[in-house]
């Protein structure tokens, strides 16, 4: 057995085991991680076939998509209270098993009969080398031969994006502006806002009574009461 075959069987075995793990794992986050492992191994098989561009895109696109899936799982699913854990969703179980069996039958028949063969393209290694590499060859075909399907797909994605934006919009436009508040953290010591007398900003002096009140609030800790920060900092002087 050549080295290539050994590496392929390792990749394929890990890929299949991870795919089984997706189905049998009880924790949805674990299932998502298994999906990522499966895709990763598929990408590695793509590399072995010489389709590096496809492998990189597989990792970038599916890794990003799975990340969002993991996020949704963490945010929206309670892993301890899934309906599947206490015999919920009977219809889905039956339909899932049925569809799985049909797919298995189809794939099995195709493998046994070897009838499922696609027409061989004209992309020989020499031709691919002539345009610069697999990525370049794919680009030429995608943007020349398949330009129209490509544009239709991008249009469908655009509709999806617009739909998401419409769903996320507030009920009435302009509503969000009324709610906007400034967030300024002053970082003053605790208790000062109770003790300070109310008055015009920066003008009311801190009286002896205020000091006593805050001292009682703060116990033994030394407290600096600052109304006017400029009193304590001098411009241009470095200490």
């Amino acid at each position: 057995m050549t080295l290539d075959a050994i590496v392929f069987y390792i990749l394929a075995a890990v890929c299949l085991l991870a795919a089984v793990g997706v189905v049998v794992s009880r924790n949805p986050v674990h299932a998502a991680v298994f999906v990522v492992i499966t895709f990763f191994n598929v990408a590695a098989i793509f590399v072995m076939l010489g389709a590096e561009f496809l492998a990189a895109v597989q990792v970038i696109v599916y890794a990003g998509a799975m990340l969002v899936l993991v996020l949704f799982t963490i945010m929206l699913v309670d892993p301890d209270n899934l309906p599947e854990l206490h015999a919920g969703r009977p219809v889905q179980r039956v339909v899932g098993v049925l569809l799985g069996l049909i797919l298995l039958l189809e794939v099995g028949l195709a493998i046994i009969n070897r009838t499922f063969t696609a027409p061989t393209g004209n992309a020989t290694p020499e031709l691919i080398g002539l345009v610069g590499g697999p990525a370049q060859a794919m680009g030429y075909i995608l943007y020349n031969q398949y330009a129209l399907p490509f544009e239709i797909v991008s249009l469908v994605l655009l509709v999806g994006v617009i739909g998401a934006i419409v769903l996320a919009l507030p009920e009435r436009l302009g509503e969000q502006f009324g709610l906007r508040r400034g967030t300024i953290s002053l970082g003053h010591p605790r208790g000062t806002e109770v003790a300070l007398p109310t008055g015009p900003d920066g003008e009311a002096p801190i009286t002896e009574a205020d000091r006593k009140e805050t001292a009682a609030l703060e116990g033994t800790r030394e407290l600096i009461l600052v109304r006017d920060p400029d009193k304590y900092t001098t411009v241009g002087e470095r200490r």
Partner: protein
Amino acid sequence: MEPQPIWVTFVVAFIFMNVLLVGMAYMTWFERKVLAAMQDRLGPTRTGPHGLLQPIADGIKLLGKEDLIPAAADRLVFYFAPLVVFVAAVVRVAVIPFGNQITVFGHPVNLFVADLNVGALFLLAFGSIGVYGIILGAYASANRYSLLGGLRSAAQVISYEIILGLSLVGIFLLSQSLSVRQIMLLQTASLQLGPVTLPNWFILSQPLAFVIFLIAAVAETNRAPFDLPEAETELVSGFHTEYSAFRFSFYFLGEYINMIIVSLFAATMFLGGIDGPGSDRFWVLGIFWLLVKVVFFLFFYVWLRATLPRFRYDQLMGIAWKVLLPLVLINIIVTALIRLAGNGQLF
């Protein structure tokens, strides 16, 4: 170029990874010294001359600490999440070229591990894999602050990854290649502008993309001022709150190695990589020039950390989607139009 035996590739990869690890250790020393100088302090001074042994002392200390696991943690995920960050960071060095082919004791040796046809995409792909370690570690810790940090990290990386990738599209258009080595070799040519001879570095033809790449790279590596996932003051270190000892240090290693890799990437894509005076004759000079550029970028990282306060979360998202994304799309369109005009296909 002669083919080299596979074991030479393994030796070269082994050397690169070890150099990277040592470089990472001394990156922490460099950062502490530069930060100290900027804040009028001395920084580490006790261990060795100028505190040069500090990284080693830190490593030994981290090895000797207790490895704590929270009772509610998802143990398996908690174990491997830091490794994902670390491995995804280290493996990226494989496509960075440190030079061309040299001859050692009569054997041809390539100063790069692999010349992937899609090297630049490989770097971007593993950058996005690294964030899995962060989000999974955050989830497995069963800690609210960690989870908040992880969620922030995911949103940040998804946004800035797009910008990082798109900022390189201009270079891909000009160089007609996705291979990092091919792009670097293109930049060793010189550019004749009337009486002035300039190096054909892509920073000159893609200045806007360079600036955007730098900003997105800082965000992608979770460094200040984009270090919201581990904002110490609000999230108690975010995603790695519950991690201790050597498991924590894997996160730490991953972050610093990512910084070095991104610096190498930026130097190779925009500043000509090994290109510099004399680099075409002596390969050592090529590595020297590459390191000079990398140290410049690393200094820039530390400089940013010392200077800028952390962004607020809505500002972070606003910059990505409302400022950087339109700019980078304009850059791509303009580059494509200029390229078409240069080919005579436009008018």
